[in-house]
């Protein structure tokens, strides 16, 4: 325990590998939160927070473990923001974080399996489990009266998990999934998938993939061949690129992302603009929140020792207390310092439930005139 | 005696970083002459030829062509200078057709070489039959004919042959020797390694016997043939 002048936080994201284009803004957001805290001079003994990046590669468990090991045992970090992909997150958690008693808050590992992973209370995530999203998605589609969809998912734990939970929920609600076809990310060509999807047909194509990966490829090929012109997008497909790449071509398409009507999301976007990263890119707000939560928990525990502050993460994230939005970290630190209570809302309306994962608020949107327009929140 | 047209003068050298194979070995040939190198296996005959052609480093000594020192030239520059060479092994382009092999022989020529090609086909009629076949599919003797044909295509100023008759049938061998004599008559010096030594020495103006990388005997073809010691040790009695 004890006070300190310096707090080191590890950021373990896949800076190389399949989601390498998502990670830079994510890391930037997390680092922004840290800078905010450092600048406030209110954390512990006016500690400076130093971020240390490490590459999870997203896919190579061994390399990710080694990187985490180095951060903890050699750089002596006090908490981990990360990892990103569920697979490497599980590996780091089991092999490094738990043995070393290190707190980990992942902004983007959404696999339902992580809910039950052995974590000694060290693991949290600001992204909701995919199980929840499947249900939300079904609601959205059913409300629009769409009963028949084709489904394609990116063939990894995220895509598969989401597809399964969606399919289950959708069928239970009386809908039909005409085909469930996996697609691999980063491949050269998606004609085969689109061919099969088109043949199966459906009112809408649900693309449980990544926007800057195969998901876009599928959408592009579907549009070009005239197979589908309206889609439904889960969180991985949300981002500015949607407007940029497709614009009004996909008018009428719908989707949902974790998000709230809380002003937080907008703030993150503005912060992004001001600091030169894309605040609307996937999991950027979650990354900011993950970093913020680590530091707020430290403040609440008045210690940078994970063993002390791991118990405080849930407290600062949830009610009761004063609602805290992005950019208000100084205020939050002050309240905590004064012994008050906060309810961190952040960019994604964080609400941690059960085993320390986001309860999952979603923003439903529609493409109108080539722009992403929010329909409502649920 | 004046300087020979092509001379590998007191050459010493070996492969890569390995030991010396050649020791002060000298071979020379003049226009209109046929010089034949004989010697036991591994004596360094092929090595000497390669050294003259610049395919291995000559550590001391020099190679001169028409009075010019070419020791430092690369093999392809020597080709341009008019030297033609048929190596002992892997001497054809196996994946290319017979005709393409011959064309490659004429690579540096800019004039019309169809005439020469006809001559080669005339010399080795079987090659004309197989002109569109990949050279790698030929029989051993046929390959050898392609190899010699390729060198003839260059119309070289000096021709070097490493065992051109190995594996060719008697009738072709006779033809080949005939042709070699013909070529040499046109004033082109010919340097040749032969294990068919008796036949080769008969037509040779000059003979070298190499043993362990050294000149052991040198003389006219006739002299060497007449030397009982040489006959017994190197020509098979």
């Amino acid at each position, binding site marked *: 325990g004890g006070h300190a002048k310096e707090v080191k936080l590890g950021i373990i994201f896949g800076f190389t590998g399949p989601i390498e284009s998502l990670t830079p803004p994510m890391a930037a957001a997390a680092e922004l939160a840290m800078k905010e805290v450092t600048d406030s001079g209110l954390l512990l003994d006016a500690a400076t927070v130093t971020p240390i990046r490490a590459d999870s590669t997203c896919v190579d468990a061994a390399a990710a473990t080694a990187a985490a090991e180095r951060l903890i045992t050699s750089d002596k970090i006090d908490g981990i923001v990360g990892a990103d992909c569920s697979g490497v997150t599980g590996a780091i958690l089991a092999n490094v974080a738990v043995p070393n008693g290190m707190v980990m808050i992942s902004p983007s590992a959404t696999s339902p399996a992580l809910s039950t992973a052995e974590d000694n209370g060290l693991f949290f995530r600001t992204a909701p489990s995919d199980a929840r999203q499947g249900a939300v998605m079904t609601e959205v589609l059913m409300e629009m009266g769409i009963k028949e969809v084709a489904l394609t998912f990116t063939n990894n734990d995220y895509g598969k998990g989401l597809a399964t939970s969606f399919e289950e929920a959708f069928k239970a609600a009386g809908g039909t999934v005409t085909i469930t076809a996996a697609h691999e990310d980063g491949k050269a060509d998606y004609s085969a998938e689109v061919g099969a999807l088109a043949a199966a047909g459906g009112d809408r194509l649900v693309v449980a993939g990544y926007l800057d990966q195969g998901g876009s490829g599928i959408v592009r090929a579907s549009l070009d061949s005239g197979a589908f012109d309206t889609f439904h997008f889960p969180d991985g497909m949300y981002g500015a690129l949607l407007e940029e790449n497709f614009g009004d071509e996909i008018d009428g398409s719908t989707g949902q992302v974790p998000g709230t009507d809380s002003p937080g999301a907008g703030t993150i976007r503005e912060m992004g603009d001001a600091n030169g990263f894309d605040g609307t890119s996937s999991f950027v707000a979650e990354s900011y929140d993950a970093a913020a939560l680590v530091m707020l928990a430290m403040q609440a525990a008045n210690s940078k020792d994970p063993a002390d502050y791991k118990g405080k993460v849930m407290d600062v994230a949830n009610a009761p207390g004063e609602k805290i939005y992005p950019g208000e970290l100084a205020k939050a630190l002050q309240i905590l310092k004064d012994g008050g209570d906060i309810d961190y809302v952040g960019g994604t309306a964080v609400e941690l439930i059960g085993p320390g994962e986001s309860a999952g608020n979603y923003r439903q949107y529609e493409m109108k005139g080539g722009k992403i327009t929010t329909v409502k929140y649920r | 005696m004046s300087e020979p047209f092509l001379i590998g003068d007191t050459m010493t050298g070996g*492969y890569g970083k390995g030991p010396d194979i050649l020791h002060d070995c000298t071979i020379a040939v003049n226009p209109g002459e046929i010089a034949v190198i004989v010697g036991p*296996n591994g004596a360094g005959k092929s090595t000497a030829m390669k050294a003259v052609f610049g395919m291995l480093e000559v550590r001391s000594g020099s190679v001169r062509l028409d009075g010019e020192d070419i020791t430092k030239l690369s093999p392809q520059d020597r080709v341009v200078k008019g030297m033609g060479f048929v190596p002992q092994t892997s001497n054809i382009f196996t994946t290319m057709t017979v005709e393409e092999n011959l064309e490659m022989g004429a690579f540096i020529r800019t004039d019309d070489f169809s005439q020469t090609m006809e001559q080669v086909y005339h010399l080795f009629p079987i090659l004309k039959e197989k002109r569109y076949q990949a050279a790698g599919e030929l029989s051993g003797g046929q390959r050898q004919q392609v190899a010699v044909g390729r060198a003839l295509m260059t119309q070289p100023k000096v021709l070097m042959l490493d*065992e051109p008759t190995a594996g060719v049938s008697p009738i072709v061998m006779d033809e080949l020797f005939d042709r070699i004599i013909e070529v040499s008559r046109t004033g082109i010096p010919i340097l040749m390694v032969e294990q068919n030594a008796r036949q080769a020495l008969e037509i040779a103006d000059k003979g070298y016997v190499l043993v362990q990388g050294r000149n052991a005997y040198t003389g006219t073809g006739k002299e060497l043939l007449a030397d009982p010691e040489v006959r*017994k040790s190197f020509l098979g009695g």
Partner: protein
Amino acid sequence: MIVVEDVHKHFGGFHAVDGASLEITKGSITGLIGPNGAGKTTLFNVIAGVLPPTSGRVTMDGEDITGLPPHELFHKGLLRTFQIAHEFGSMSCRENLMMVPGAQSGETLWNTWFGRKRIADEERALRAKADEVLEFLTIEHLSDHKAGQVSGGQKKLLELGRTMMVDAKIVFLDEVGAGVNRTLLNTIGDAIIRLNQERGYTFVVIEHDMDFIGRLCDPVICMAEGKVLAEGTLEEIKANEQVIEAYLGTGLKNKDQLEGA
């Protein structure tokens, strides 16, 4: 001993061996001659199992061996050399010979871990044998040299040396003489005769050197265009008009002129 019955080997439309039939008697040294491209090597390859015949049959001691893979024929006592030397380039000359004998107990993986004593004994004997052969071929100084880096003729000698490492029944020699020094070739000829007489090896020899054929072979078979053209003693063959025309020729035309000049 070996009977070749109407063997055909076609490459695409080309008939390299075109209905060759011949018989090789036990204990003979048979010479096989013929112009370049006559199909001699191809016939060897068919007999030795390298190429499957298009049609026809090969028997050895009455047993049909058509299409048997080379390694099985080896164990039946059939050895051959290659016209274009096939050395094991990255191995030393001695190893090139030592690898030949079959049924080495050290070739079983298990023994390499648990039968090391036996292997060591066998190796010693093999090594002695290999050195003996190398010495005979006058290349004992090259025993530790990589086979890929010896002279062309020496490779041919290794080729021959391999056949001397084991007790064979029948040995096919494809132009072992080409590129070998004539003096040494005579020694080799003597050795072949000795093996033939003392140990009863049968030999089939392809050669273009008539002196060599004449010294060793009886009978001599001449092939041309994939068929057997003539068969008999060398004298008979030499007198055969067709053979002269296709193969032997009438000697140098230019030589006399050269001497006249």
